[in-house]
């Protein structure tokens, strides 16, 4: 495995961000990476995306926060996080020790929030990129999510871009009528790449207690259940924009990664699957290496967007 992994050319670029392979871990599903050290050789991964960071610490939502659904799960973590200051002083220190590109997922309630977090992260050592979560409701605009209105999505992107020194990826919400419209807006806003999809909004009910299964009533659906929706959106967005696309949603195996690359993704993120198989990300890297060798490809890049439409 080790030798295959070094011999196969798995390198990809998200704009200026060079990765040794296209496999990242998705925000909120891989902690601050250290949690996975017992299971994964972290420096085998393309990158890790850490849990969403806000300006101030957030306690998150009350329990229950997660519930299993058919081939998926709903979460309403409520963006529990330590805030950008403690993230920098505590979490980044241990992340700097790990030899893997770190992408920081950020979120805010206002444009200024986003701008300020990006600014604070700007000169922190060891940050390879920023991923902007625009699924959050804009508190100044009556709670409409930044990610659902093209103009707002573009504005957030531009704000973060302005105050950032590293590549900026914008993470798109799938809960929209036309995701390509949002993708084009953030491209115009200056994004170096887009990642998709975030979770689909869903709900679960316990008919016995007649109550919602999540304290927050609604939550985000992830896991294999959403893969068909994710693949479709990645395919559409990859055709609509010229910046790189990072595919996310229900990815569990090397085969799933290949499907997203064929659909047009330059890289992927593995989310919920990390909970089921903590080695999923590293196994996918090894699987891609074997694939490149078996198929005698020059590099994994050959198959990106290689879907054949008969």
């Amino acid at each position: 495995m080790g030798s295959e992994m070094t011999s196969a050319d798995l390198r990809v670029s998200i704009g200026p961000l060079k990765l040794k392979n296209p496999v990242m871990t998705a925000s909120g599903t891989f902690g601050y990476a250290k949690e996975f050290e017992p299971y994964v050789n972290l420096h085998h991964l393309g990158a890790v995306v850490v849990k969403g960071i806000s300006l101030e610490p957030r306690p998150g939502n009350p329990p229950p926060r997660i519930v299993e659904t058919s081939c998926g799960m709903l979460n309403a973590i409520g963006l529990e996080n330590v805030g950008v200051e403690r993230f920098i002083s505590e979490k980044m220190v241990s992340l700097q020790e790990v030899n893997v590109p770190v992408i920081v997922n950020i979120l805010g309630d206002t444009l200024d929030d986003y701008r300020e977090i990006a600014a604070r992260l700007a000169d922190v050592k060891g940050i390879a990129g920023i991923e902007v979560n625009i699924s959050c409701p804009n508190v100044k605009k009556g709670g409409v999510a930044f990610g659902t209105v093209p103009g707002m999505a573009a504005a957030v992107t531009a704000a973060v871009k302005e105050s950032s020194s590293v590549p900026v990826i914008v993470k798109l919400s799938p809960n929209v009528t036309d995701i390509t419209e949002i993708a084009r807006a953030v491209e115009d806003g200056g994004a170096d790449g887009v990642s998709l999809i975030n979770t689909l909004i869903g709900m679960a009910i316990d008919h016995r207690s007649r109550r919602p299964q999540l304290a927050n009533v609604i939550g985000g659906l992830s896991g294999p259940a959403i893969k068909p929706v994710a693949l479709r959106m990645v395919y559409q967005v990859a055709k609509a924009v010229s910046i790189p696309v990072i595919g996310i949603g229900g990815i569990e195996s090397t085969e799933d990664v290949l499907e997203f690359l064929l659909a047009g993704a330059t890289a992927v993120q593995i989310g919920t699957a990390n909970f089921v198989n903590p080695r999923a990300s590293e196994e996918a890297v090894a699987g891609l290496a074997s694939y490149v060798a078996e198929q005698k490809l020059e590099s994994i890049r050959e198959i990106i967007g290689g879907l054949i439409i008969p």
Partner: protein
Amino acid sequence: MSQFQEKTQITRIERFTEDILRLTLESPEIASIAKPGQFVMIRTGNSSDPLLRRPFSISQTSNNLHFQVLFKVVGRGTSILAHCREGEFLSVLGPLGNGFTIDCRNRNCLVGGGMGIAPLLFLAKAMLRKCPDTPPIVVLGSRNREELTTLVYDFAELGLSAYTATDDGSLGHHGLVTEVLETLDLGADCTNYVCGPHPMMTAVHLFCKKRNYSCQVSMETSMACGMGACLGCIVPVEKGGYGHACTDGPVFDAKELVWEVK
């Protein structure tokens, strides 16, 4: 350090009642490092439905080679587990969590209810090794005699005769474990190690608070990952915010938690 073992063989299946089983799994890696109160996350099937692993306390280890889980069939995951055969393999992640803190200075009292009894056998063994002079008091509660028999016997093998309480009175006290606790002479200082249904743990916590006893409780929450990544497994803590049952727990000092008392 916690292990991820995709092929852990089931070497024995004991069926206590129609819906309570005990599996013995072979894993030197897990058995040799596990501590009482820790748990494992088990994948119950091969398909994506059910998707997530299920948490189970390690209920015993033997010879640094095997460990056991005791469980009750309550839903789809446990029902799939109940249909496993000896010789089959399960994917197991563990040991996870902090485990109980054994305190030899005090009188120790183990209080288990239902499947919460699972980790106590392991704890009792460790305690007898660590504090040979002060064997713990054991109080076990469950629905009926059937569910308790084998477990009581297992404690007896360690030389511990358990006080029992059952919902139907078929074994021991007819009622709650706290009613049994009230009748015991636990002295001025006693550490209680509690695992069971939430209402029972609440009651034991109140009992301990009243007497100023220390009380360690093992909390059950919904868990997706078992290792601090999903932030799903929270329990509200007294100082504000939340603790994470999989990494800060599952065992907490009852004083540090928020108890909703009606």
